[in-house]
């Protein structure tokens, strides 16, 4: 990252302003309904977390730079400038108090994509040097080491060795011509190795070839969370280069919401061209395998369980039915949370919030929304499909003394695979 400055911050925000942003600010009537959709507001009661307020610096810049009336008002000294104070004051609203969950965008009566604008304004805050130190560190590690948590290839190799010892399943790195290239998130390598084993068993039963790229095993993209498109591009380019080099048909995004957004939707726009391969979320792949009869499951989970929709996968990714079809095949007591599906409440740790230690307090406050949803449901197990949600949920549950195990859907599916011997 080159030297940050306020001027650079303002220029970066200006560069983000396009026709959609202008239409959003032109249409806002200050009805305040976005606040009612935002867990940072509903749980804290602090009106500064009203979503449209989080992008106020961008509104000022838009008004002053891109409207005639705003220019006139500026000339008469009637507008509020965006200066160092503004960046200082808004930094925690932009990063700590927003998980980019997108609920505000879907409830806005005039159709403003507010969370999309928070994503955009972060470009300016990072350029001005007003971004959380933890996210800066994570992004630096992602660029320099290859993973935001500092996970290096030997750690992945060690996982693969364990996998082979435990299950006899061998995974070849950098296998050219494999059909699928599997991405992992650091959290899956460090905290949830069950994911890798699940993938290996599922792929084996489906009879599909797959590989992991030694240069691009990491799927997460902290460049997107912090809002530095240059670095986000560097991170996503590794995946694109590896996938095209290996000639895979499909890249599988892991159980990680923002990784999916980064590689599926933002990636092509960051590198400036469409991919030569497809990107699918693991849930889409599992759903396809099941529909095609490539994998078969047996037995049912009998415990009362519910599914937490990760925002980037459901509300912003369109994957809502797939996890439900999968769960209904392997769980006999699956119940839905209030507002399930596209309107689900965020776990409170998305958008870089969970990686930002400074945000711990507001994150745990915001978690109370999930707590009350779960209190009302009284489940034995919580299933999700995002390693970041999973960790945030585990921490939140622990903090509240709630004893509910959190399980990844992929590994739950793998546990119910029909034993190899019985498959012809």
């Amino acid at each position, binding site marked *: 990252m080159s030297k940050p400055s306020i001027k650079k911050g303002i220029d970066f925000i200006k560069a983000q*302003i*396009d*026709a*959609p*942003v*202008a*239409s*959003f600010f*032109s*249409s*806002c*009537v*200050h*009805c*305040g*309904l976005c*606040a*009612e*959709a935002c867990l940072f*507001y*509903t749980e804290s*009661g602090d*009106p*500064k977390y*009203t979503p*449209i*307020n989080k992008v106020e610096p961008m509104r000022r810049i838009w008004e002053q730079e*891109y*409207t*005639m*009336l705003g220019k006139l008002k500026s000339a008469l000294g009637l507008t509020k400038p965006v200066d160092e104070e503004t960046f200082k004051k808004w930094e925690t609203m932009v990063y700590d108090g927003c998980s980019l969950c997108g609920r505000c*965008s*879907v*409830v*806005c*009566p*005039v*159709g*403003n*994509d507010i969370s*999309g604008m928070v994503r955009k304004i972060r470009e300016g805050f990072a350029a001005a040097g007003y971004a959380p130190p933890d996210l800066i560190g994570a992004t630096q590690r992602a660029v320099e080491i290859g993973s935001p948590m500092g996970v290096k290839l030997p750690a992945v190799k060690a996982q693969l060795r364990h996998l082979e010892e435990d299950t006899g399943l061998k995974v070849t790195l950098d296998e050219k011509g494999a059909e699928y290239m599997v991405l992992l998130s650091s959290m899956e390598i460090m905290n949830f190795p069950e994911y890798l084993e699940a993938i290996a068993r599922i792929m084996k039963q489906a009879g599909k070839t797959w590989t992991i790229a030694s240069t691009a095993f990491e799927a997460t993209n902290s460049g997107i969370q912090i809002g530095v498109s240059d670095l986000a591009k560097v991170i996503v380019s590794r995946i694109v280069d590896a996938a095209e080099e290996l000639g895979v048909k499909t890249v599988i995004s892991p159980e990680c919401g923002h990784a999916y957004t980064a590689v*599926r*939707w*933002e*990636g*092509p*726009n960051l590198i*400036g*061209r*469409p*991919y030569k391969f*497809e*990107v699918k979320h693991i849930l889409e792949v599992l759903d396809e395998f099941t529909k095609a009869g490539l994998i078969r499951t047996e037995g049912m989970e009998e415990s009362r369980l519910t599914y937490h929709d990760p925002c980037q996968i459901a*509300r*912003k*990714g*369109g994957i809502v039915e797939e996890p439900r079809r999968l769960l209904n095949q392997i769980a006999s007591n699956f119940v839905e949370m209030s*507002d399930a599906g*596209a*309107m689900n409440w965020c776990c409170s740790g998305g958008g870089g919030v969970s990686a930002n230690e400074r945000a711990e307090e507001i994150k745990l406050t915001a978690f109370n929304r999930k707590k009350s949803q779960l209190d009302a449901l009284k489940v034995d197990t919580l299933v999700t499909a995002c390693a970041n949600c999973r960790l945030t949920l585990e921490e939140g549950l622990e903090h509240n003394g709630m004893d509910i195990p959190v399980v990844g859907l992929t590994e739950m599916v793998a546990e119910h695979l029909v034993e190899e011997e019985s498959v012809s």
Partner: protein
Amino acid sequence: MEVNELLIWARGPAFNMALAIFVFGMLLRLFEIISLGRKSDLSAARDSGLSGGLRTIFSRSLPRKTVFAREPLRILNGYILHIGLFVVIFFYRPHIELLGLDLAGLSSSVIDAVTVITILSLFAALLMRLYSPVLQHISTVGDYLAWLITLLPLITGYMAYHHLMLDYTQMLAYHILSVELLLVLAPFTKLTHMFSFVLARWYQGYLAGRRGVES
């Protein structure tokens, strides 16, 4: 200026001027928006952006259950205000004649009742703005200005119809002048949303549509 002259001026040259400013101002605002353009999205679409955009223009008129449950009064009041304004503007027979529309219109007593309801709705909106912590936090002078210029034509229209306070001709002139104030200022306040909401919903709906997301 004599009262009659004022009315003639208000109905004639002033109205044409105000309408011209309204049309020109709105076109300018919409041009300011659209001319900024947007980059084409290079990600592989899961579904149609076009149908998503068109769908959202309409679907966003209905509230999400989750938010309605939290703020039913604010949302219902929004409907009353917008429908009320639409009815009194376009279904009052003298307005229809003036605008040269081919509408049957509603009886004056119905319009009278709707006017009262709409005025009450505006005051309810004002109270919410003054007393809700969120609305206090995000409200600007522009919000109160937009409120006032929307209220004035309703009040003056009501008073003219009922011959309250001032002589009918004078009040009618004030009514028309207040409409002209609204027309002149609308493009330069948040009232721009009367047209730009279509763009905002379209842009978000387009994005959602490509991703196969409901919006």
